[in-house]
């Protein structure tokens, strides 16, 4: 019972995004056109058509986090990384502001490659991101 979402996740797990050649292959398998599959993929928020940063940072902007000053966290992170909803020039980070991540009792929330960081304030967020910067530099 493999469903389309399984196939998309599998490819993205391997490449970090969905390359066009894979989209063509999956479209053929599904018996739909490439453009139809493109329409499906882009409907979802968590599939990428191009390589994104090594570390994907997602900051929740939904109401519970918003009430607890998530906007301050986001602003500081944007300033620190010098990006707004996009990838950094060195390819290390991608920053996204996203809807509810389901940790509303512990906001503000940020995830980095799906690891949850909760009860943030701007300083704590920058500290965490800096540790990833060091990690990235070490592995470079």
């Amino acid at each position: 019972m493999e469903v389309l979402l399984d196939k998309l996740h599998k490819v993205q797990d391997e490449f970090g995004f969905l390359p066009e050649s894979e989209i063509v292959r999956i479209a053929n398998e599904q018996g739909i056109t490439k453009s139809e599959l493109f329409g499906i993929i882009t409907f979802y928020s968590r599939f990428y058509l191009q390589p994104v940063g090594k570390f994907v940072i997602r900051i929740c902007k939904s109401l519970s986090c918003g009430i607890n000053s998530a906007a301050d966290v986001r602003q500081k992170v944007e300033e620190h990384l010098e990006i707004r909803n996009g990838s950094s020039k060195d390819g290390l980070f991608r920053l996204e502001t996203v809807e509810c991540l389901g940790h509303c009792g512990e906001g503000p929330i940020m995830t980095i490659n799906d690891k949850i960081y909760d009860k943030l304030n701007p300083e704590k967020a920058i500290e965490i991101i800096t540790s990833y910067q060091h990690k990235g530099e070490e592995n470079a």
Partner: protein
Amino acid sequence: MPEHKYLKKFIEASPSGDFANLRKAVEYGRDKCLNELEISGLVGRGGAGFSTAAKWKFAWNSPDVVLICNGDEGEPGSFKDRYILENGAFLLLEGLLISAFMLNSSEVYLYIRDEYKDALEAFHKCLDDNLDLIVWYCEQVNPGFELKVVCGGGAYVCGDETSLINSLEGKRPHSRIKPPYPAEKGLRGLPTIVNNVETLSNLPLIIRDGGEKFSSMGVEGSRGSKLICLSGNVEKPGLYEIEMGKITLEEIIYTLGGGCPNGKLKFVIPGGTSTAVLAPDGLKIAVDYGSLRKAGTSLGTGAVIVADESVDALDAACNAADFFMSETCGICFPCKEGNRQIDHLLNLIRQGKGQESYLKLIQDVALTASCAARCGLGQSCGNMVTSLIDKFRTDFVGAKL
């Protein structure tokens, strides 16, 4: 996060490696089980509050029923399904197996949102830990049974059952027109039962204690307990389990949640951003489906969001409008264009370019969406915004108009 006493009781009642409630259900047979479910008065915990037994009866005599457990929890403020998956995966697994047995369903899906990686992992671990029992179930109870865990792709609208079905079919996950309801014609045209994670997690308890005991908790139309996700400006946010109808919203916020730490309470959202807000004078209200409906709002998913006086009603309205504008599936006009217009008008007001007539216009657009949209997302998208305008008009008119 505060410990969840009742849920713990649930899990202890059916320790991993036992499946006592499932065995009891098999002994009862499916008709007696349905009878117990009916007596229990269980209603769906995903937001609509529809009778579970009534839904199942639509498909009761059909062969090839598909069962889908909806774990695509995306309602802002809601995290109960994640908690069950991470801390009580066995409870859900047993609930799923009981439900599949009752519905004679061998094709079963659990759809979990991609954001819930820890939950996915916890459920897979639970499956691995109980492999022997699942094999027994497949051989002795439900031949041909296959449980497929599907990871979503990031789309709030997949919480709507018809969108979820399109997603599983590999289509663009927009909503479908109802009727036909999924129970009649769902996945690949087959009768399909879609239930929320919390709903199915009640099944083992109903079988264990009997429908009568379950229905002794709560009030008419809202039997049993409900998980409440408390967040926002509150001293002790977290997950709480309440007996429906026996506790007020005020008690949840002050007695359980410790009240607002830094100021006076301004408004409360009782069931997630799809529900109308309540002002402080409206909090002495029992928390159950009927009482909240009577007060013009809804228990929704049980996501109680508390806002103190530091929160501007216009900002909160903009936040909700932006959410629905980005999450509408775009298939039906009142929701697609309505949410875009509500967001546009609110932003004009925020920029000081608004007129007071915009407020009436926003309410008209929201009313149109609530009457004409296909699915629950569109029908409920304006609840929060319009109730904020009704109750805190000065925040909108104030300096901005």
